[in-house]
């Protein structure tokens, strides 16, 4: 169980995350949603231990920063002359020795195989498409055998086929490994379909936390995004959000 209590992130005098508290259980996927600049990525970075913050973070009764947490930052173009296998192997950095152990090699190979991308192993990371690169970095965090998975916009800039592939693999890995998974997403419908719960942020604060059907409502989304939406029932029972118009300022 990952527990965050009153997590606050400040950049100078600006408060990016304002006393956010949440709990996420093993095997659960939590999607963090919100408009640009609402503090989603800052909250995720604080949970990952790469951003200084105030408040209490704990999981499995341990507050050791970083250990057992797999954090995947937002995708960025890379020109490093490293193969996909080397990138995945770096996921084992905490145990990697100059002479790489058999255990680390096996873990990297298994992570590639788990995501079905063993054929990319010898390709250079800079040659891969955005979707392939995201899967390689997902394999990198899985190679570390984490208990908590934190993903910052893992489906941004991907076409719908790649989005679907990443989210299905994520869901499957979460269930198989009993991971505590938190992902920042922009696509409300993807979040509704793949997340167990949704945390909705605005101005650094949590304005909604619960099951997709409870959080994705017209008044809450108007408050979060300033947009009027139409909520429909999808074929599998999940809510489907249709943006209609910019909400008039009252």
């Amino acid at each position, binding site marked *: 169980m990952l527990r965050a209590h009153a997590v606050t992130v400040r950049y100078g005098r600006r408060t990016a995350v304002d006393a956010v508290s949440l709990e996420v259980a093993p095997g659960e996927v939590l999607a963090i949603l919100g408009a640009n600049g609402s503090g989603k990525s800052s909250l995720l970075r604080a949970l990952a231990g790469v951003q200084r913050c105030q408040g209490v973070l704990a999981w499995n009764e341990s507050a050791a920063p970083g250990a057992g947490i797999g954090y995947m*930052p937002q995708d960025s173009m890379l020109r490093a002359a490293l193969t996909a296998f080397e990138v995945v192997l770096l996921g084992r950095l905490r145990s990697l020795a100059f002479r790489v152990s058999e255990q680390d090699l096996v873990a990297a190979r298994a992570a590639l195989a788990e995501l079905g991308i063993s054929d990319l*192993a010898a390709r250079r990371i800079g040659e891969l498409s955005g979707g392939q690169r995201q899967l390689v970095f997902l394999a990198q965090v899985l190679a570390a055998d984490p208990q908590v998975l934190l993903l910052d916009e893992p489906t941004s800039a991907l076409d719908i086929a790649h989005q679907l592939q990443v989210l299905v693999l994520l869901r499957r890995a979460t269930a198989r490994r009993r991971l505590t998974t938190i992902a920042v997403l922009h696509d409300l419908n993807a979040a509704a379909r793949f997340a167990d719960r949704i945390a909705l942020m605005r101005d650094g604060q949590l304005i909604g936390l619960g099951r997709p059907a409870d959080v994705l409502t017209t008044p809450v989304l108007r408050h979060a995004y300033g947009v009027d939406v139409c909520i429909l029932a999808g074929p599998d029972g999940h809510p489907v959000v249709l943006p209609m118009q910019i909400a008039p300022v009252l």
Partner: protein
Amino acid sequence: MEPASAPADAVSSWRATNTRRMGFSALGCGLLLVSFAADVATGPAMLPIPAVLRSLAGLGSDAMLDAIVRTLRLPIALMAAVVGAALGLSGAVMQTVLNNALASSYTLGISAAAGFGAALAILVGASLPVPEAWAIPAAAFAFAGLACALVAGVGRLRGATPELLVLAGIACLFLFQALLSLLQFLASPEALQQIVFWLFGSLQRSSMAKVGIVALVFAVTLPVVLADAWRLTALRLGDERARALGVRVDTLRLRCFVVVSLLTGAAVAFVGTIGFIGLVAPHIARILVGEDQRHLLPASAVFGALLLSAASVASKLILPGTVFPIGIVTALLGVPFFAWLVLASRGRP
């Protein structure tokens, strides 16, 4: 997304790649040995390589040839190799920690700072309590360290990015070049001539003691950076990803700056400013062995040593009977070579 096929095993394929990388480094070592022997054999008196090898092995029968080889040419050839290795290694470390392919001790002002230190020691040499032969390298070393400290100091600022560090290095370059110009303006004609000659870069002032110092610094710093090889490799994915993997990026960068300042300071102190080796050698190594720093760092040292050793040979062959300053040779040969390298690697990820 391409469907997953039945690929060659990822681990065996990676091991084969590593074997090929070690092959390239071994090839570099072989070429270095050839260049080293040619460097000892080349000079006003051209010596046959078999006789040179016999003399180096202590099996020589010609006292005159032994004296030329061991006393005159061996220190120069060894100095070319160790200084080249030090500059190649420091260039590779800098390019990695600053995430900038143009970073080197030359382009970031560390060599300019060393030049200023040397010029200062030449100007006030007579009033120093140590012999000028040691005061000049000591001052060059100290100012190279100062330039590194200035850049590293900027790196300690909150929110400092690799780009900011590169800008700080360029600011250092202009600062010390301006200060150097000021000293040249103030210097007497004799001192000015000495300063200019130092700035050319030359291996002719080498001695076994000086070779020993540079070799010692190299031998101490190489294991330090190799111990960080995986963390440096992680840094190639960007600061954020490296942090996510558990790298303490700021501490690593600071440690690397100390190593770079020691390597560059020791190398430049005894031979003057030598450009392009620290820039080009890591590029060659990167093309051949990739960016797993366990391979890249030693390969950069090997190719740096090879380039400077070859430049030393060339410096004696351009105009028979005259030894061109090595700094001029590396720049003249390095510029077209670097241009070719950049053009050839266009589009490479």
